[in-house]
């Protein structure tokens, strides 16, 4: 008899943001047969249904060799931040409000291959209210093109789900695994 009352209780608990919920993101940078190759700038973020940013997950851009950008003649940073507005959706959705480099968010550009990251209860996602979200990956490359790939997912997931999308030019496979 007791278990009958317990079940709805557990279900109700399940509707709350689960402590252990996790989002695994994999972004593939494709190998391109071009004469002059520059690694792409990539931004990864989670957006709400109204397209506002729920969480910024990562930004890969050219941070000059030797760590944080050195100051230029005018005392201001002279890094590749100049080209960040080219990630134009990310820029308008809030990228322009961030100060670069940003701890736990920005890093150097990545080479060809798959790049994986997991976001759990210590990530910005932990505070997300339950709902339908989109993972957005935007890439832009010097002397190259621009591409945006998105994947809609429910957070937190009721059961483990893997979603995949395939970029056509600047991005390869983009995969999201949502775990309850």
């Amino acid at each position: 008899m007791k278990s009958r009352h317990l079940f709805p209780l557990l279900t109700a608990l399940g509707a709350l943001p689960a402590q252990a919920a996790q989002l695994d993101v994999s972004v593939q940078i494709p190998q391109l047969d071009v004469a002059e190759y520059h690694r792409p700038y990539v931004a990864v973020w989670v957006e709400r249904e109204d397209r506002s940013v729920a969480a910024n997950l990562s930004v890969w851009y050219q941070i000059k060799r030797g760590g944080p950008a050195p100051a230029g003649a005018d005392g201001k940073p002279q890094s590749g931040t100049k080209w960040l507005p080219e990630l134009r959706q990310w820029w308008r959705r809030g990228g322009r409000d961030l100060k670069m480099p940003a701890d736990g968010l920005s890093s150097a550009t990545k080479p060809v291959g798959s790049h994986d990251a997991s976001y759990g209860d210590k990530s910005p996602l932990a505070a997300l209210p339950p709902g339908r979200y989109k993972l957005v990956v935007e890439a832009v490359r010097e002397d190259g093109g621009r591409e945006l790939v998105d994947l809609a997912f429910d957070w937190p997931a009721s059961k483990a789900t893997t979603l995949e999308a395939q970029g056509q030019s600047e991005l390869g496979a983009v995969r999201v695994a949502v775990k309850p």
Partner: protein
Amino acid sequence: MTTFTRNTTAVSRQDAKTPRKSESRKAFASAFLGVFAPLREARVFAFAVAMTLPLAVQAHKGWLAPSKTVLDVDQWITVDAGVSTEPFVRDHNPLRLDALTITAPDGSTVAPENAATGKLRSTFDLQLTQAGTYRIAVLNEGLMASWDEDGKPKRWRGSPASFASEVPAKAKGLKVSETRGRVETFATAGTPNDGALKPTGKGLELVPVSGIADLFVGEDATFRFLLDGKPAAHLDVDLIRDGTRYRNATGEQHLKTDAEGLIKLSWTAPGLYWISASVSDNKASLPQATERRASYTATVEVLSP
């Protein structure tokens, strides 16, 4: 009584011969846009001009072409300014920069750098040192007069200060109109703001309702047109996308503001867009003038999503 007229509205004098009419129209438009800064040149065009001023003339279009409009703080833009039959096509005359005003996001006025006027276009650079939206405007104001002198039509264009000394007060058939033409564009560094976008309350102006900085294909933009600070209802607005040289049709869109002066624009393709409207009425603010013509042109940049 305010009447809103389309740019191509026929002139009121129907008896003028067509070729002469179009010639005078061109001269009027060019002079109006400040292309011919020296007064003498404007007078050269005074031949063949009908006594009645064409109320709505725009054979040539003034434009500003910014290199980019969405940037980060401290980045530079370069802006070209010209007058031509098709917007952004550098094949006719420069737009003079004498009346250029750049308003920074905090409302202060900043100066352009490397300003130069060439044969086909003017140009200048601007560093966006403040976060927010800059307004770049060329505002040409003045008086135009036409009268009959010994049976020959005379035309004059100048400032209210020189009006009394240069225009005979008792000229036969003297007709004086006030012109106010605003050609604008906008550029944003970082997060947009509206510190530079406050309307002046004079002439024809545009106020962005849904923002002027983040225009994307697939998203509608809403702007409000104001005439003397009040909504310009049922105003004809023309919209042209850049790149006319590389397509067969200009693809001009004729739109109209609603009763609240609002206009909703749907972008079909990315690019620079030329948005323009004009009004002719009898609400001249200068005592010498009986008519006024107010025009407004904006260039906005639309990106692909």
